[in-house]
């Protein structure tokens, strides 16, 4: 299938802002894109769809001059262009949020939003005007944080919003958002969509990438599907059912979406009642209020709550990444002094961070080396692992998580975002911890792989591992968990059993809201 005028009668009279024809991009040993056609119309949200590694981010980078295509032409407003880099593309009116947060952690929020286009007075950057302008832009997105605070102090989700604020701060005719919603909550997503609609109605052409089908169907007018670096087709969203979309993406007929659902992990019958981890009164001032938590063998405990409710902070306390200033943690009944992550790891606690770029994978090493690092750490440095065992294990995990390319020697930094996430996950799974804390493990992962990972988690639990599962997707949490801990305003407000539904969780979060509002009034 190719771009066909008959397929899309709606754009009559509208000329494409961006038109890419026959684009190919090659990396040593990888054909990331092969003769892909793509176009973007003004006043439209266009979703770019495909599995992890399909070439979505590569297409975006080819458009904005980060990569130079080996073949093909790009037209902007009908004129042939070839950008020398992101700066050049930006000057031509293309504003981009690349996958992952690409901001400077050492600078303030305001500086990050306005870098390169700060308001100036007499040639000097006007700090006050900067902060005021940034505060305005953030408020437009419903975000009330101090623009003068350092970016690194904020959780990933806030950083993602800041990156988006930066992109929408300019009057661009093309706005590109590569997985902007991967760590956002429903409310933030709704806010983002509101802004996207405003921009769209103003005639901005928006390119949107997401692995959440719900979001794609909610916001997009048209979609282009890629598979293995090739164009599969362009369709109006209204004309393409979810089922068809999924089968276009993965290239196989899928009986039904229900099949995907069936494959997905489900909380097992009954978890044991043998406690592995017991936390009593654990807390840290300014981070999480003291809480009690017990996690049993073979149990999946979900952590639900809104952005900033303290989910990640709680996990970091259990892992010793932040030192608790009250309470006690016991592992298998033995008191554990949580001084550092090292102590936690030694006691059998693993924490798979939501910030894979900052504290996750080693980008300059191969998949094999990344996995072996984890194995060695688990095994003790003094005891070498035979080469053959290593190779077998590496192969096993690459397969289990469907890491692509399935080449152990590929550098992790060059993998697509979703595949990097899988490597990170594998690193921790390999260590066979007693307690595994997963913080947004399916972030940026395509639906096929997502169900696979959920299944894996359920299996691991059945084998006796205790899992703490943090996710912004309540569905996922409700389905997988034996117990759900609900967080709000940095404290634990409830614990629900296996029969908890998304509605129950939502109600709990909302309910307390009403009450505190009543008190405030």
């Amino acid at each position: 299938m190719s771009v066909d005028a008959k397929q899309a009668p709606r754009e009559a009279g509208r000329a494409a802002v961006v038109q890419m024809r026959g684009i190919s991009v090659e990396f040593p040993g990888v054909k990331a894109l092969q003769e892909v056609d793509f176009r973007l119309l003004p006043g439209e949200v266009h979703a770019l769809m495909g599995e992890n590694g399909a070439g979505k981010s590569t297409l975006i980078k080819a458009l904005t001059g980060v990569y130079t295509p080996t073949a093909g032409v790009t037209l902007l407003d009908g004129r042939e262009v070839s950008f020398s880099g992101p700066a050049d593309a930006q000057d031509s009116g293309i504003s981009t949020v690349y996958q992952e947060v690409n901001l400077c952690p050492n600078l303030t929020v305001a500086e990050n939003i306005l870098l390169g286009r700060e308001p100036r007075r007499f040639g000097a950057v006007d700090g006050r005007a900067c902060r005021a302008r940034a505060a305005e832009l953030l408020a437009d997105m419903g975000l009330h944080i101090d623009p003068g605070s350092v970016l690194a102090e904020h959780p990933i989700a806030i950083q993602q919003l800041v990156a988006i604020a930066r992109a929408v701060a300019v009057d661009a005719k093309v706005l590109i958002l590569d997985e902007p919603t991967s760590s956002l909550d429903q409310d933030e997503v709704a806010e983002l969509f509101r802004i996207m609609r405003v921009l769209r109605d103003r005639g901005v052409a928006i390119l949107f990438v997401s692995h959440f089908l719900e979001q794609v169907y909610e916001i997009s007018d048209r979609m282009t599907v890629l598979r293995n670096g090739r164009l599969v087709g362009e369709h109006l969203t209204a004309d393409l059912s979810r089922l068809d979309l999924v089968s276009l993406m993965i290239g196989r007929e899928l009986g039904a979406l229900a099949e995907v659902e069936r494959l997905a992990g489900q909380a097992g019958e009954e978890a044991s009642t043998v406690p592995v981890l017991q936390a009593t009164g654990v807390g840290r001032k300014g981070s999480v209020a003291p809480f009690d938590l017990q996690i049993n063998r073979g149990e999946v405990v979900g952590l639900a709550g809104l952005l900033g409710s303290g989910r990640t902070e709680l996990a970091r306390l259990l892992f010793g990444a932040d030192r608790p200033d009250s309470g006690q943690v016991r592992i298998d009944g033995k008191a554990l002094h949580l001084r550092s992550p090292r102590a936690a790891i030694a006691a059998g606690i693993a924490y798979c961070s939501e910030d894979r770029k900052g504290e996750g994978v080693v980008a300059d090493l191969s998949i094999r080396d990344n996995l072996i690092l984890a194995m060695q750490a688990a095994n003790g440095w003094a005891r070498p692992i035979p080469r053959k065992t290593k190779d077998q294990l590496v192969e096993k995990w690459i397969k289990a998580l469907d890491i692509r390319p399935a080449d152990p020697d590929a550098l992790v930094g060059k993998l697509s975002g979703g595949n990097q996430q899988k490597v990170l996950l594998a690193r921790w799974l390999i260590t066979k911890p007693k307690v595994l804390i997963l913080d947004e493990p399916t972030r940026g992962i395509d639906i096929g792989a997502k169900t696979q990972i959920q299944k894996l988690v359920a299996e691991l639990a059945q084998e006796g591992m205790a899992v703490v599962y943090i996710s912004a997707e309540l569905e996922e949490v409700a389905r997988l968990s034996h117990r759900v801990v609900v967080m709000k305003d940095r404290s634990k407000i409830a614990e629900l059993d296996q029969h908890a539904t998304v509605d129950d969780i939502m109600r709990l979060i909302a309910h307390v809201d009403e009450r505190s509002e009543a008190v405030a009034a």
Partner: protein
Amino acid sequence: MTTSATPVKGKAPLGAILRGRSVPGRVVPVIATFVLFVLLFGVGAARYEGFTSGQVVANLFIDNAFLIVIAVGMTFVIVTGGIDLSVGAVVALSTMVAAASLRAGLPAPLVVLLVLLMGSTLGLLMGLVIHYFEIQPFIVTLAGMFLARGLCFVVGVESISIKDPTFRSFATAAIPLSQNVSITWSVVIALALVAVAVWVLHRTRFGRTAYAVGGSESSATLMGLPVAKVKIGVYVISGLCSAIAGLLFSLYMLSGYGLHAVGMELDAIASVVIGGTLLSGGVGYVLGSLLGVLVLGVIQTLISFQGTLSSWWTKIAIGTLLLLFIVMQRVFMRRQP
């Protein structure tokens, strides 16, 4: 992480705490340097008569004017996450070129121009290699250091004294500040340069971009910032500063010599680090570096007032301080997420 401002949707009281937040972590080392300077000075004042005289303070600036200038250039480089090992050698080369061309009869203004041009060109070349060939700044500027030192001896192996009247009068001119305190033109130039540098690094887009590059070069590129311009620019600035420092040094010594300023790059790096700039880039202040130089200077003064200690004790003190400050920075950085 603990200070992460929650989106204030949930009316988190944290926001309020944050607003009242005292100094951000990265200013702490600068303040510490300042406190240290005051302490050291206090020790001197308590123990030695005449330590608090205005001229002692003035001499602190007079004797370290050139170091202040290269520390300023070095701050730019280190803020972007780079390093410049060539500065000491470029200072020496500048004194040599200045002395030799003055001896050859070139007019003083032309000599100044020549030296400045040479310094910035060397910086430009190193910057270009670092950026376009993606080679470690450590290696490239190490090569630059050997090159500049070598060139000194191509110009001449012996020390060349400067007899040019303009240079001499400039060197010896005293600017009286009060009845018995005076400074030299070198101090005025160095402090003017500090003022300009503060403005450029902290108030212009160029400066902001330097911090961004130091924070994350790949992000800065994707944000569409002029990374190449800034990355190369800081080496040009450092080269230019080295040349200016070289001129000040030739005023100070009234000679050019290939063995001048040996190891001065290390003094400069030490001052910058003691002044609170992170070697990994992204955090630092020009005024911090100035304070760093003054701390080094005051230690030197203390030891000369003491009289019996060998000047090598300065090195020991600097080494200890450096270690102390790096450890302190680690601690403060770790507090942050």
